[in-house]
């Protein structure tokens, strides 16, 4: 009974995984007006759980492992939380909680209604998506990861077309089909790996692979299938066809989650494959190819973001560009700072991008227009929202002392350390493009309005507070990273 009395790291790992799952199931079962409160309560409990877990892992410098059902791998499935995992877990928790709180007033039933469609779907699928994301982070089993990634997709797709607009159905279908294609390839790869060593546990596989001098053809094909399949889910150029319509067309809180959290899931698995299964793969041709695609994404995403006329597609293309930065981690993996840079970029982008999308949502609702050329007077009407937008934008640009800056700094450092100078070019050029589209919005928004009689807006304080919180977290993350000292060892 002592296990129940004191929640140690092991219990917290399990709770972090099942709390949102339980919340989603209860929200669905009870429904009505209660669904929202169940989801919000879940978020708060999960926040406490994850913060405690992070505290334990960071404070005691330990790696928490948990064998589900007590079955040891290769038979059973293992959960594992190390420092990097809890950082991403914490980021996702902050993003999720803030998004839920800022969206708490949306899709409420009318007085004579029992529940609304969008309300039930949102408050059920968002915790479900969260549970899936946490599973992706914590699970050490390749097949379990597949199931979790699938749940993530199945929850994200209906959320994309939550507003019921015709064009979002097409976007959602496109998203679903391409994500499925990626999953099938991943699954095939996982199967081949099982055929080689009879296990799906990443830790055991890493042991087996480290014994090899040369990869057998089955392993090569499996890794190729898994890598490409996961890349399809991260929307790296040229596999990004599904992202812009889905992320731009979804309701703003959903877009925030999709861009901040969902695309990161597949990337985390990719990091695991390449850093845990095959350490020292930085100089392989595959890593170089991934880097090239990353650079391509930075340029393509940045240019396309600059050429959008509306706010949300602009932010969606920005996600494509920012995912590009993450892929530069692979060719730079030889440097000590690359891993930290990728992780930090992932987290600070998540926070900043969520803030941007939520701010865009408030702008659409309360300013009534998201055409960038029509935003004049926004600074006067919604100063706080614009401030948050600006701070988040600065983090994307990599202005100090934001998290984006420190990540970029470490990436550049990695480029120098490994002697691959060329990678500095897309990093720096991408910053220029990012600054271009962020300042383009700020420049218009700070102009006085053409019609001076714009009333000060009535953006709910909670929403503004959450957006600011997200933007400032991205900033604080940078300060905290700076505090840990440079360069990371």
């Amino acid at each position, binding site marked *: 009974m002592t296990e129940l009395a004191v929640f140690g790291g092991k219990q917290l790992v399990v709770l972090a995984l099942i709390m949102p799952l339980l919340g989603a199931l209860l929200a669905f079962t009870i429904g009505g007006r209660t669904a929202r409160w169940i989801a919000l309560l879940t978020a708060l409990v999960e926040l406490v759980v994850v913060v405690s877990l992070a505290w334990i892992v960071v404070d005691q410098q330990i790696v928490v492992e948990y064998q589900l059902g007590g079955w040891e791998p290769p038979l059973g499935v293992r959960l594992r939380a190390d420092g990097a995992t809890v950082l991403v877990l914490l980021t996702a928790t902050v993003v999720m909680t803030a998004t839920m709180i800022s969206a708490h007033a949306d899709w409420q039933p009318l007085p004579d209604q029992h529940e609304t469609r969008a309300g039930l779907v949102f408050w059920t699928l968002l915790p479900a998506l969260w549970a899936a994301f946490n599973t992706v982070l914590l699970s050490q089993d390749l097949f379990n990861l597949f199931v979790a990634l699938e749940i993530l997709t199945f929850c994200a797709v209906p959320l994309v077309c939550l507003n019921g607009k015709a064009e979002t*159905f097409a976007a959602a279908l496109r998203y679903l*089909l391409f994500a499925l294609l990626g999953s*099938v390839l991943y699954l095939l790869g996982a199967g081949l790996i*099982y055929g080689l060593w009879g296990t799906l546990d990443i830790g055991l596989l890493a042991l087996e692979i480290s014994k090899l001098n040369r990869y057998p053809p089955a392993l090569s094909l499996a890794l190729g299938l898994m890598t490409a399949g996961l890349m399809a889910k991260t929307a790296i150029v040229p596999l990004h066809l599904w992202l812009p319509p889905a992320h731009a067309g979804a309701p703003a809180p959903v877009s925030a989650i999709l861009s901040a959290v969902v695309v990161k899931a597949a990337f985390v698995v990719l990091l695991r494959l390449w850093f845990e299964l095959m350490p020292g793969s930085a100089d392989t041709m595959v890593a170089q190819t991934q880097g090239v695609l990353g650079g391509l994404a930075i340029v393509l995403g940045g240019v396309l973001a600059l050429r959008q006329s509306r706010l949300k597609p602009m932010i969606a293309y920005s996600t494509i560009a920012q995912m590009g930065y993450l892929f530069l981690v692979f060719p730079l993996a030889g440097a000590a700072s690359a891993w930290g840079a990728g992780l930090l970029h992932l987290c600070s982008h998540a926070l900043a991008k969520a803030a941007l999308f939520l701010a865009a949502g408030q702008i659409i609702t309360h300013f009534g227009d998201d055409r960038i050329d029509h935003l004049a007077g926004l600074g006067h009407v919604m100063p706080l929202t614009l401030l948050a937008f600006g701070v988040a934008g600065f983090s994307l640009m990599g202005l100090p002392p934001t998290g984006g800056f420190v990540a970029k700094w470490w990436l550049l450092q990695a480029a120098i350390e490994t002697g691959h100078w060329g990678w500095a070019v897309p990093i720096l050029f991408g910053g220029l493009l990012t600054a271009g589209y962020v300042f383009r919005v700020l420049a218009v928004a700070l102009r006085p309005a053409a019609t001076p009689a714009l009333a000060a807006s009535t953006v709910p304080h909670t929403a503004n507070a959450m957006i600011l919180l997200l933007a400032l977290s991205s900033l604080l993350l940078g300060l905290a990273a700076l505090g840990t000292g440079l360069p990371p060892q």
Partner: protein
Amino acid sequence: MVASTWFGLGAALIIGLSLFQVIINPEPLRKVLAFNLLGSAVFVLFGVLARRGGGRIDGVAFADPVPQALIITGLVVAFAATVLAVALVLRLLQAECATQDHDTECRIDD
């Protein structure tokens, strides 16, 4: 070559076929169908792996149970995906018909 290997070769062939359809066929329902074919071929490959690890006890053939369990889970997940995709296609059809009735253009192939 044992029979299970032949099944593996067949699965490889069906995977190629269905991948081609998934990429080339423009009709969403046919894409979904091709996905199912693709998924089933991938499961056969799993089955071949399971059979390789099996054997015979008292004259009854048996296979590695782990891939079998994975296939059962995978089949259910694939069914969920199919349901969702078909529901989306039907909803899209309905939306398309509605716009057709109002005689307005709706671009979705972009």
